[in-house]
């Protein structure tokens, strides 16, 4: 059976070049970058080279990059680190209802610790209201954290505008750019972002490595205290091979970005058009323009997402459900609910997230097999009969 992968927002394959770049650091070059002897010198340089690659992707300076072990760690580091560093100035944080659990659960934790958190609503397109943001800011507001691109819908937040508001009000601005980095341009010279999180395995790098951009002058309480690593900002012996692979992946993402955007947009259009033509009662979720080029989030009325995913899986197609059902909770997608979708539609959503290696043929195969699957599941659904 052909294996088709439409779940690039969950994770991406490691590119061959990335793997090749990592190999020496798992074989002969295994020294500790903190060592002053021969074994450490090459790895120290490799880590610093990778830092430059990450900085180049984001257009910042290498000194502003802190390597982490994941996007989740970066989000925790940025949000808790800023909150604790500024707790004498205020205790109010503003975020949105559609953030990733890495941000939401960090904010919930801070609430237990005496911080006030405002969770901004989004409209049916998945976008926050800038006026609502402005009026939420109080003299006690120390942090705004709003994601760059949503992982479920691909919807892009108005980052430039948020940054300008944050700067004007003197509030620190963090953005979770885990889904945006490598897929669309991010220029930290042009955006008023103070803290930005990215992750290696979402841009064809390895799992277990990420980076936090912290603009020069932004002070954070470390999340992981320890040795002098990362200029005292994050303790722990560096994941050298992972960092090197991540750097390589950033190089490639930057080089190929324009081409990939064109490629992915065309595929996504083909997918959404094909599905819409062949299957009634569907809804594409999220703002149709302000979106990542690779993400299509589609609700299939009257059927539940996981069932669709299992059926797709049996045909070799990997996709993902908006519903967190798959990861240990039975809640419907908090993102789609926040966009005012009904519970049924939220449960019935499927996320197709495309990537580098996907082809038009793969899309066509999906469009061919999907209608009978949906029809069969609908025929089993008590909601469908009721609706007809």
């Amino acid at each position: 059976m052909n294996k088709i992968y439409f779940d690039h927002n969950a994770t991406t394959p490691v590119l061959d070049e990335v793997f090749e770049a990592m190999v020496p650091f798992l074989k002969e070059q295994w020294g500790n970058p903190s060592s002053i002897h021969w074994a450490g010198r090459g790895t120290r340089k490799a880590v610093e080279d990778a830092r430059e690659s990450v900085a180049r992707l984001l257009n910042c300076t290498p000194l502003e990059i802190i390597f982490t072990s994941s996007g989740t760690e970066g989000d925790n580091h940025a949000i808790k680190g800023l909150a604790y560093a500024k707790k004498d100035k205020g205790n109010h944080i503003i975020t949105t209802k559609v953030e990733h659990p890495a941000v939401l659960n960090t904010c919930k934790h801070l609430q237990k610790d005496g911080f006030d958190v405002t969770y901004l609503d989004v409209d049916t397109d998945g976008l926050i209201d800038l006026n609502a943001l402005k009026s939420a800011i109080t003299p006690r507001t120390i942090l705004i954290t709003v994601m760059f691109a949503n992982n479920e819908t691909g919807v892009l937040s108005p980052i430039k505008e948020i940054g300008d508001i944050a700067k004007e009000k003197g509030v620190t601005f963090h953005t979770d750019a885990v889904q945006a980095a490598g897929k669309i341009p991010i220029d930290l010279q042009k955006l008023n972002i103070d803290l930005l999180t990215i992750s290696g395995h979402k841009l064809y790098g390895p799992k277990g490595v990420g980076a936090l951009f912290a603009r020069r002058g932004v002070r954070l309480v470390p999340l992981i205290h320890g040795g002098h690593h990362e200029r005292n900002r994050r303790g722990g012996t560096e994941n050298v091979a992972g960092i090197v692979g991540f750097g390589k992946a950033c190089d490639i993402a930057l080089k190929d970005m324009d081409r990939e955007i064109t490629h992915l947009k065309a595929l996504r259009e083909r997918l959404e058009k094909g599905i819409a033509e062949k299957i009634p009662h569907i809804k594409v979720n999220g703002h149709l323009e302000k979106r990542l080029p690779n993400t299509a989030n589609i609700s299939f009325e009257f059927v539940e997402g996981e069932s669709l995913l299992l059926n797709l899986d049996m045909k070799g197609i990997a996709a993902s459900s908006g519903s967190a059902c798959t990861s240990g909770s039975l809640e419907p997608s908090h993102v789609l609910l926040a966009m005012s979708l009904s519970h049924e539609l939220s449960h019935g959503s499927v996320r197709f997230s495309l990537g580098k290696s996907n082809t038009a043929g793969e899309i066509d195969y999906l469009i061919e097999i999907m209608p009978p699957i949906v029809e069969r599941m609908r025929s089993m659904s008590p909601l469908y009969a009721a609706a007809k």
Partner: protein
Amino acid sequence: MYSEKVMDHFSNPRNVGEVENPSGTGMVGNPACGDIMKLTIKVENDKITDVKFKTFGCGAAIATSSMVTELVKGKDLTEAEKISNATVAEALDGLPPVKMHCSNLAADALHSAIEDYKKKQGAK
């Protein structure tokens, strides 16, 4: 994640549909939870002679629905009433922990259908 039996019942669900002129109908679950099951039964001489289901739900919800129809077909009502959600899960070689609650409602649907039948009988 799912056992082979679950996947079998999910991909080849038994007794899908609605019994014509059902003796009893049970509907449980709600959209918030993500699973809705409708079970219709035909009862003759206190025996369940036919049973069909329709389910909106995840793999576990569909498999448990299918399994409960197999377990109950041809059974006396008193026997059928003894079937619990745990019986169904067991018959499927278990369910993932997160699925034990919300998506394991098929026996509830069955009991609700039997109750409906009894209510109708009482009303006669």
